[in-house]
């Protein structure tokens, strides 16, 4: 019986301590780029990465809590993963007043913004869910890579890569950046 009381006392102290921390906790929205990396790091520990389009955003927000609990994923990383899944399911539409500046966004920025390194090795670092993009042009030409970014199921119907909803100019910028970084 003593063990039970010690257990309860320990839990009480833990709760009290954590409640204090949680009051000061800052919960920003998740980061898509970091989410792609954590998606690769955490999910693959136990199973294949599930395609983001398997569930709707609302469903992911429930599933991610379950995964956070059983996978012991830190809350901030779980929110980043959810942000990545949501972004993958909801391709950003170009703004109505998109000006030339949007088109000028560099391939490097886009690669960072969309978290490509979460799944692909680029410049020597990145995840391994997808193929190594440092060597992609040894096997493929620019048109093939561009088509793959535009529609990941173009070449493989089971691809887990999300549809990013990029414009032609943005895709070209990414392809050029990948080509330059070879």
């Amino acid at each position, binding site marked *: 019986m003593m063990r039970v009381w010690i257990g309860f006392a320990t*839990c009480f102290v833990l709760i009290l301590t954590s409640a204090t921390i949680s009051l000061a906790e800052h919960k920003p929205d998740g980061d898509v780029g*970091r989410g792609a990396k954590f998606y690769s790091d955490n999910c693959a*520990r136990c199973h294949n990465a599930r395609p983001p389009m398997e569930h709707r955003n609302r469903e992911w927000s429930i*599933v991610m809590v379950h995964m956070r609990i059983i996978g012991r994923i830190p809350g901030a990383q779980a929110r980043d993963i959810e942000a990545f899944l949501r972004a993958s399911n909801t391709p950003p*539409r170009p703004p109505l007043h998109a000006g030339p500046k949007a088109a000028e966004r560099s391939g490097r920025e886009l690669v960072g913004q969309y978290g490509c390194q979460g799944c692909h090795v680029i410049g020597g670092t990145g995840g*391994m869910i997808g193929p190594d993009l440092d060597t992609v042009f040894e096997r493929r030409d620019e048109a093939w890579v561009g088509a793959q970014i535009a529609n990941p199921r173009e070449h493989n119907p089971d691809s887990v890569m999300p549809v990013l909803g990029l414009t032609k100019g943005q895709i070209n910028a990414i392809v050029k950046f990948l080509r330059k970084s070879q």
Partner: protein
Amino acid sequence: MRHSGIVFAFIFLYGLGASTVRAEEMRDLRKAVEAQGSVINELREELERVRSEQGRAQDRVLALEDQLALRPVSAGGPSESGITADYIDRRIEAFQTSDNSRFFMSGYGNIRYRDVMDDGDIDGNPPSTYLVQFNPIFHFRLTDRLHFNSELEIELDDGGETEIELEFGTIDYLLNDWLTLSAGKFFTPFNVFGADLHPAWINKMASRPVIYDKNKGVIPVMTDVGIMASGGAPLWNEDSKLNYAVYMGNGPVAEDEDEPALEFENTPDENNNKTSGGRIGFLPIPNLELGASWSTGRTKGPGGRFNLLGSDLWYWNDGLELRGEYVRLSRKSEDRLDKWGYYLQVAYRMSYYLTDPTGWSGVVGRFEPVIRWGQTKGFNPDNRDQLALGLNYWLYPSVPLKLTYEFNQGKVKNDRLFLQLAYGF
């Protein structure tokens, strides 16, 4: 000379007049420019306002599109003759995906064929049989911090009976980013196979590792009823991480006072003595995890104290996955009853070698050869050495078709063949 003076006077007067006129023009011009500047500023503000309104309009359009997509029922209702299957499907979809929905169902299942070779199944099971299992998992979000999760296991067993069991059912409170409190029935956080890897679509073999064998292993897939605190936190950078879980529960039941095996049926605590334990996992880099587990308690009967110690390893690199677990069970009866075992498993996903997802490379890339070696040793005379060879074909990231052959060497030779189609949803 006089003429010159007149000319200079004239030029002076003309210049004076001209400069007066130029200065006035400049003032007018400055005023005009300033006026234009204010007009431009007003236009700029107007443009920003219009852009802002456009953005809001775009958001409203997107929201309306989402609402339309989330209300399939509005597209049609039950026919005059009654409720149609289509209508029910739409209602279910609307329930699951509504913005206000807090419920979601996931799960997994499998169909498995097992054939026992040689001396027959030492566990007394039929020599060859099909098995089917379905595990729905229900998730319900009560609030952002409070969740309810439960899993049922519905299994058609060897005897032809359908068994329904509550695999887990917990109320979870997300206290902060690093701590979750759970109460109810949960998978005991001891090593990783029982808690995380046993679902058929996740387990890379069609059978369990020898240490988790239902009858002759060291421990089963353990569950307990009680309370648990768990969570994870990044360490020196976001690539390194620590995760933990500690629990207290009813604990196991001793099968036999002279046998080390324990049953985790989670009956009410038979001796009013709670079991406690936990696991700590350490990831110095994202693709390497080292874990240590323990569990201790007392079962009914004289000298019923038991101790479980475990450790686990996971490493992944470029499609190659290495897993291993060790477990040691000690019970102090009149004699010390110890049993221990381990397994090591290596799997390789061919798609990491054949990076071309098209044509034959795409087909071959879906294969995953697996090899597993394990042993159980100790008090139980039925110690077992097991070598298992497997070949998986991934029809989908959560649907493997698995072929597994086990070479079992113990008191009797007991090889087994498995063919399993598993799915997660």
